[in-house]
Each structure stands twice: as C-alpha cells, then as structure tokens.
C-alpha cells in the first residue's frame, strides 16, 4: 500500500513538470494549428540558459525561470516572424508547418550541440538531491518544487486565458480565426503573442527540467513523442486536457517503470500516443477530430 502511494507521488510530481512541458505545445497548436516538433528542443534551450546562469553565478533555477522564459519568448517572436508567419496562406499549411518545426528542431539541436557539446548536464541546487520523509514515504524536493511551480504557472495561464482581454482574443482565435478577425482581433498579433507565450512556457519548463532530468542537445527526440502523447490525449489545444493527460500518463508510466522495468516506462507514452491517434484522435477533451 505504501508502495503504491510512493509510486503515485513520484508519478504526480513528474506529471506536473510534463504538464508544463506540454502546455506550450498545446497552446501553439490550439491557436495556430502548428504542431511544434521543435518544442522539446526549445525546452532544452531554456535548460541550457538556466544551466549556464547557475554555473556562472549560482543563481537558483527557479529564480532563473522568469528570465529563461522571457529569453525564449523573445526567440519565439523571432522564429514566428521569420519562419511561420509567411506560411499562413500556404495551401498545405499544417503539413508545411510540421516539417518546418522539424527542421527547426534539428537546427536547435545542432546549434546547442555545437555550442555546448553532447555531454549530459544537470543543474544541482541543494534541493535537487534532497527529499522530505513522511513515515515510509519519501518525496524528492526537486521534483516536488518543480511540480508545484508547474501547476502554479499553468493555473496562471488558464486564468489569463479565461479572464483577460488578450486571453479572450487568444481563445476566440483558437475557436474561429475568421470570426475573431471580423470582431476586431488582430489575429496575426495574437498568433505572435501565443507563439511567444508557448515558447516562453518552453523556457520555463526548461528551467525546471534542468534540475529534474539530465539533458543534452539530442535528448529532445525522446521527449517529443512523450509530449505529443500528452497533448494528443488531452485533446490538442486544451490546456486542462494536457494537465490531466500528463498526470495520468506519468502515473501509469511510474507504475510500469516500477513493476515491469524502467526501460518500458517511456514505452507507455509512445504506445498511448499510438493508441489514442487510432482510437480517439480528438483526445479526451477534444470534441471533433480536428487533425484527423
């Protein structure tokens, strides 16, 4: 029983981080219909920013989070304007943007590899190796903090989307781009903004990832299918769905990892992705199969 509880706790804490990793991906798809395969590579970009800040000045990764997030958001604006804005009129938009983000992922990986080599890195603030003990249960502090920060950021994001004027505009653009435009929303600006927020979330996730996982430039391939499974299961574009799916899948993965073997725990995500695409492509929360 204590065993099960322990696995559950570890799974949930990790799930919180994965939820943040996936939420930017989901937002960008929701608003712009871009399946951003480069998202995990940009998370790693954020992780490197945090890593070097820590190494050079000792600044805490969680303190560094807003900075990393802003830097990545600025990069996001640049990327959107250079690569994606011009594709909005392309006939094969969705296919085109998937391939473009794929190319972008390779560019980011190559650039990071060239700059920082393929050595595995991890940021190690004190709490990263510490844990709380409650009876027989132990809760690693690093994962716990990361999970909590993630959920705080996602809550803030949801509130922003739900109540602010820009949030209205973003949601409206997600649901009906044309109608939003006709009601006075500058949809191109909204797309730039949403992309910036999406990539900014990648930066934020990068700061947390930097002390939860070890990372290197090519690591993003392992994450893309994992995040895709979370986002697709959650119903692409739904932030709440992404969170639920992330928690669900990482708990399942934690059980698979403990009971069957660590190598098979990642397989949980890939198999889930495969099954969802085939059985219910619209995901748990999506209402119609928008991408099928």
């Amino acid at each position: 029983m204590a065993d099960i509880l322990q696995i559950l706790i570890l799974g949930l804490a990790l799930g919180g981080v994965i939820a943040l990793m996936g939420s930017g991906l989901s937002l960008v798809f929701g608003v712009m219909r871009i399946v951003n395969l480069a998202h995990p590579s940009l998370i790693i970009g954020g992780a490197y920013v945090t890593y070097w800040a820590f190494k050079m000045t000792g600044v805490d990764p969680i303190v560094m989070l807003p900075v990393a997030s802003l830097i990545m958001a600025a990069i996001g604006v640049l990327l959107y304007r250079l690569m994606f804005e011009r594709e909005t009129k392309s006939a094969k938009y969705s296919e085109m943007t998937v391939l473009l983000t794929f190319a972008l992922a390779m560019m980011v990986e190559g650039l990071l590899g060239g700059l920082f080599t393929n050595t595995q890195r991890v940021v190690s603030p004190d709490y990263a190796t510490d844990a709380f003990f409650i009876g027989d249960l132990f809760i690693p502090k690093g994962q716990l903090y990361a999970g909590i920060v993630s959920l705080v950021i996602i809550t803030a994001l949801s509130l922003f989307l739900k109540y602010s004027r820009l949030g209205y505009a973003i949601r409206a653009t997600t649901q009906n781009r044309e109608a939003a435009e006709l009601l006075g929303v500058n949809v191109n600006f909204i797309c730039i903004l949403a992309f910036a927020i999406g990539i900014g979330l990648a930066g934020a996730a990068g700061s947390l990832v930097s002390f939860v996982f070890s990372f290197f430039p090519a690591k993003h391939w392992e994450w893309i299918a994992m995040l895709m499974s979370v986002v697709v299961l959650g119903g692409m574009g739904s932030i709440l769905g992404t969170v639920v799916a992330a928690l669900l899948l990482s708990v399942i993965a934690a059980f698979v990892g403990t009971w069957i073997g660590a190598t098979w725990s990642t397989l949980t995500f890939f198999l889930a992705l495969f099954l969802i695409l085939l059985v219910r492509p619209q995901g748990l929360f999506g209402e119609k199969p928008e991408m099928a």
Partner: protein
Amino acid sequence: MTELLQVTNITAGYGDGPAILDGAHLTVEPGKVHCIIGPNGAGKSTLMKAICGMLTIRKGDVVFKGKRLNGMRPDQILREGICFVPQERALFPKMTVRENLRMGGFILDDKKELERRIEGILERFPILRERADQHAGTMSGGQQQTLAMARTLIIKPAIVMLDEPSLGLAPKIVQEMFDIMKMMSAEGVTVLLVEQNALMGLKNSDWGVVLDLGRTLFEGPAATVLADPRIQELYLGGKKAA
C-alpha cells in the same frame, strides 16, 4: 453625394487564384436596407469579404465616409464602422453566449460600458438571456443566427453586412431574422444583405443589387428590381408576380 460606402469596379480573388470579382460596384446609402441577389457562386460572399478586408482588392476602390479602405486589415475596417456577419461559422462554439457577446465588443476599451451594452442586448433578446451561460455551439440554428446578429449591435456600427442570415432556417424563423434586421435598420444601422431567396430579400429592402459572374449587373430601388421583367426571369424564378 450622400453615399456612405462606394465600391467602384473592384477586382478581387482568393490568394493567387483567379479573379472572382471583376467589375463589381455598389453604392450604399445611409439608413437604407440594401439587398444583393444573384445565383450561387456569383461572388456575393466574396464581395462582402473584399469590403471588410478579408481579401486583397486588386483593382478598384472601396471608399467609406470619404476614406479609402483598400489594404486595411479587417480589424481596422471594423473600427471604421463596418461589421460583417459571415454566411456560416460566425460564432465561437465553445464560448458561452455571454462570452460571445463580450467578443462582439472586443474593440471597446471601456469594460463597464461593454457589460452595460451586453445587458441591453440580453434585455432585448430574452432567448439569449435564457441561454446566457450555454455554449454557443450547442444552440439551434435560429438561436445562433440571432446571437450573431445581436452581437453586431454591441458596437453600434455604421454598416452591418449580413451574408444569408436565413440560410438553413425554417420559414417562420426566417421572418424573425428579417424582423431583427428591420429593428437594426430602425436604429439607424445601414444594412447590406445577401439573400438567396431574392423575392423575400428584395421585399424587405429599399435598394436592390444584382450580382452575377463577379460583376454588378444592375443597381436600383428594390421595387424597380422586383418589377424588371428580365431580372424576374433570370433571378427571381420566372414571372411570379409580386
């Protein structure tokens, strides 16, 4: 000249595609109801999209209150005072009726004023108040169309362009849509209407425009259009006397 909006000989199309409109013109006078008729594929919707800035105008001019609108974005044209309700998919299906109305006033900066106007709309359309917290996508076709039309009233535009508001609605509901339209007109909103049922559209309008093959064939008082034998034969389904 008393015209509010003047469209002169415009050419427009989708993307790099062929010109769908070629030689379309239109005069909109303040306070009147204008009805554009023409067969399917004539370019009626395309004309409205060109006016509101969704399509690039390749040739010709759109002049509103003496100002040239060519090249402006839809959100800018809306701020000038031209509001377009497209043929379908005008609403945000996963937003509530109230949220949809709030989006209708997106360009208003004063939040209090916006809520006040939403309240006013809900006052006048009890059906919308009843369903204020329901997702728009789950309402009936007539209710959705009511919401789409009512929503335009929030910003009190100078011109409302309605693309086939009666599409797919039962005859009784269609009459309700025309009533809403007349109410808008009575409030001083100039209406530009596209109507598939030409007879009904023209009867409810002051001004008639016949569009075919992307060109304006005829423009004149609705009664004249209704009475013209050639137009009757070609576009009004034979000599069914009015």
